[in-house]
């Protein structure tokens, strides 16, 4: 601070000494704001009565006294002015950057020197120099151009310049040398201040940068995604916590962790290199190993190069985004889509196959909805029922539709799932009535309501024709059989009475035949008995043809077995019977069936000379259309030679020589066919024979 003592002492020194002291004092200042007070002291020390600094306050846009020495308040207030008061000598001095002397202020006798000080220099600031950029404020302010007080911020380094005016009250008798000395002092002080100001500015910038760096680090750390800064050699300069998990080894490590981190570093480095090579600083997928969880994590690496302000590339900033879940969801989506596509394909194939089937069924097919309205017709059904408009023009088709509608409506509201019924429709081309067998089924919706009905119409014309032919043939056969029976009966009847007499005579003669005539008598007796058997057989056939009713197959079988029980036992034949007890009655002649059983049982017995097993089984068969009783009569006898099988059902064919009539199986076959049944035989010589008989039952 300026004191009286100082000013006394200064008075004893030479000008040169004083200048050197002043320079040294200024040099010792460490801060820019220390300079101006020192300057004021030095000015006063030069012998000037008082001095002050009025500085530009950019906030209020005015010049305000900041530091003063020996100045009263009111004196100071004189040097306060707006910077826009352009005719004010202070402002003019600043703008022109030239010292200005105010000759004499009101109420003051001495003139005043206004000396502008502001940040200026011949050389650009370091930043401008390093970046080689024009527009450094120091240079601009140093030029002779008119100063713009409102814009004192450096374009290069953002430094806000100081601008002030040093106001010194001159002595009335001051010499030019003294004034020059004063100017030199102020100029030197300004030079010092500019230098300190610059240093302080850079120091402040550094502090600001530290804050920025700390903020950036916080941002980086707070990111959950790994962020990595790398240099031009892809070496990691900086990484956040999330990245450390993958790229940095903690103090205690397992071997697996080391490998994982090494692998990750290698993968990452390779990815960066490949990005650098390919020139695409974009996005790339990167699979890394999570060393903690020991699982693969898929990242999307977004890299961007980092540059200095002068455009030099310093490395890369890479942000890794965990896309494992995303990719998994993606993959799932893709798989679902594929599944859907393949399901669609299956459905399509099914539909095509179904269409192909429908087209090739060869029967008309009608699909109706729940209101019995036709929704689908195949070409054959279209012909029969027509489609839409052309149906309306054809009365035949309308009638067909009405009939079908009645049937389908009844079926839709019925309780059965499927139904078949005869339906007579008219063929529109031939105008003839055709008998159809309508087979219908229901398709239900998820609530169990009828959604659709499907009806297949089977043309029965061909079936009926075959049935008719079969029926005619059977009638013919039956007629033939009946005629043969009647003929045989008539003959037998006529033969019967004479035979009865002969037979009785032979019986009567039994005791009166001479020894030598005995063989002849025996022949007479056996041959007559044979004729008697033939007649009996024939009459048996004829006798009961009219006796028709219902009968129980099982009881007929039981009766027959009972009748032959003793004979069979004597022949050493074991009987195995297995009669199903739920067999409904059959229509026909019980007597005829008894004859069938008798003949077959006798045949079986005769085939088993050495004894054996006779089995009789009955069983109810249901082929879905008809119910049949199956009768199996089998033996373990000698069997029938193959060549005999073909002729065995013809009349007068026998294997029993004189004992047989050759009519048994012929009659059996005739009876079975008369009953609408079927007779089949399976035989193996030496093993046995099985007769299989199917007879329809009646419910």
């Amino acid at each position: 601070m300026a004191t009286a003592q100082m000013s006394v002492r200064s008075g004893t020194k030479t000008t040169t000494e004083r200048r050197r002291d002043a320079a040294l004092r200024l040099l010792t200042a460490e801060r820019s704001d220390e300079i101006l007070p020192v300057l004021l002291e030095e000015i006063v020390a030069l012998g000037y009565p008082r001095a002050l600094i009025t500085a530009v306050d950019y906030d209020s846009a005015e010049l305000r006294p900041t530091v003063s020495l020996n100045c009263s308040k009111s004196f100071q207030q004189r040097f306060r002015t707006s910077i826009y008061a352009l005719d004010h000598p202070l402002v003019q001095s600043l703008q022109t950057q030239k010292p200005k002397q105010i000759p004499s202020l009101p109420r003051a006798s001495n003139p005043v020197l206004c000396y502008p000080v502001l940040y200026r220099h011949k050389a650009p600031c370091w930043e401008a120099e390093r970046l080689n950029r024009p527009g450094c404020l120091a240079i601009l302010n140093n030029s002779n151009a008119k100063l713009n007080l409102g814009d004192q911020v450096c374009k290069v380094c953002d430094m806000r310049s100081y601008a002030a005016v040093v106001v010194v009250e001159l002595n009335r008798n001051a010499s030019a040398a003294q004034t020059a000395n004063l100017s030199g002092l102020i100029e030197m002080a300004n030079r010092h201040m500019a230098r300190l100001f610059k240093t302080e500015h850079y120091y402040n910038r550094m502090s600001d940068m530290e804050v920025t760096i700390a903020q950036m680090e916080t941002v980086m750390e707070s990111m959950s995604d790994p962020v990595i800064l790398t240099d031009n050699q892809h070496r990691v300069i900086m990484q956040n916590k999330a990245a450390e998990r993958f790229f940095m080894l903690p103090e205690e490590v397992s071997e697996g962790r080391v490998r994982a981190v090494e692998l990750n570093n290698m993968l990452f480095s390779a990815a960066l290199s490949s990005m650098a090579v390919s020139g695409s600083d974009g996005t790339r997928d990167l699979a890394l190993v999570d060393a903690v969880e020991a699982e693969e994590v898929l990242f999307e690496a977004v890299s961007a190069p980092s540059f200095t302000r002068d455009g030099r590339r310093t490395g890369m900033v890479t942000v890794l985004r965990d896309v494992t879940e995303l990719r998994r969801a993606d993959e799932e989506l893709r798989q679902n889509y594929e599944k859907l596509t393949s399901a669609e394909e299956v459905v399509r194939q099914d539909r095509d196959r179904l269409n192909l089937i429908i087209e090739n069924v060869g029967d008309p097919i009608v699909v109706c909805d729940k209101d019995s309205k036709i929704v689908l017709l195949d070409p054959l059904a279209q012909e029969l029922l027509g489609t839409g408009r052309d149906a309306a023009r054809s009365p035949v088709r309308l009638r067909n539709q009405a009939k079908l509608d009645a049937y389908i409506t009844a079926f839709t509201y019925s309780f059965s799932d499927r139904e078949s019924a005869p339906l007579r429709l008219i063929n529109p081309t031939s105008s003839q009535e055709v008998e159809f067998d309508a087979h219908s089924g229901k398709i239900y919706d998820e609530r169990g309501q009828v959604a659709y009905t499907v009806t297949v119409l089977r043309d029965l014309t061909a079936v009926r024709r075959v049935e008719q032919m079969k029926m005619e043939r059977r009638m013919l056969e039956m007629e033939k059989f009946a005629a043969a029976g009647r003929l045989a009966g008539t003959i037998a009847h006529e033969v019967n009475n004479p035979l009865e007499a002969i037979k009785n005579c032979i019986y009567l003669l039994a005791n009166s035949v001479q020894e030598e005539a005995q063989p002849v008598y025996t022949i007479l007796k056996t041959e007559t008995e044979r004729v008697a058997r033939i007649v009996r057989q024939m009459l048996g056939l004829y006798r009961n043809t009219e006796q028709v009713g219902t009968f129980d197959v099982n009881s007929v079988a039981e009766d027959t077995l009972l009748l032959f029980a003793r004979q069979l036992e004597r022949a050493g034949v074991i009987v195995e019977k297995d009669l199903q007890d739920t067999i409904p009655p059959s229509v026909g002649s019980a007597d005829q069936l008894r004859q069938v059983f008798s003949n077959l049982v006798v045949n079986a017995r005769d085939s088993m000379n050495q004894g054996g097993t006779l089995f009789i089984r009955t069983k109810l068969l249901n082929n879905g259309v008809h119910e049949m009783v199956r009768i199996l009569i089998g033996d373990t006898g000698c069997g029938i030679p193959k060549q005999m099988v073909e002729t065995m059902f013809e009349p007068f064919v026998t294997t029993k020589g004189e004992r047989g009539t050759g009519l048994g199986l012929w009659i059996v076959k005739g009876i079975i066919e008369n009953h609408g049944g079927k007779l089949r035989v399976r035989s193996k010589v030496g093993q046995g024979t099985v007769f299989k008989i199917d007879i329809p039952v009646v419910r």
Partner: protein
Amino acid sequence: MDKKQILVVDDEPNVLVTYRLILQQQGFAVTAAISSEEARRCLDSVTIDLLLCDLSLEKQESGFDVIEYARKKNAKVPAVLLTGYATQDANDWAEQRGIPVLFKPIDIQQLLETINKLIKNEGGSSAANQAK
């Protein structure tokens, strides 16, 4: 012991004769009738233990008439119906009355068994014993 009296009726003379001979051989007293008319006459004059009668007789006459006639005389008299051919009606008729039906040609052993059984049970009606 008195011989059992059997009446045989058949319109075939040779058959009738042979039946008579066979039955006599078996120790029965046999009366033979060639027609229904003659059979009725015999029934009027003789008390019989058994009637053996052919179903189809001369003209429109049938064994049924003869049996009916015999049963009028003695409701419990056993009878056997002989026939070469019987309709269902005839079968039913015989069955109702407990009369066995034997079909010609008749097995003589079976005939004799049937007769013996009926005579032994004389007075009661035996179960129908139909033969083929």
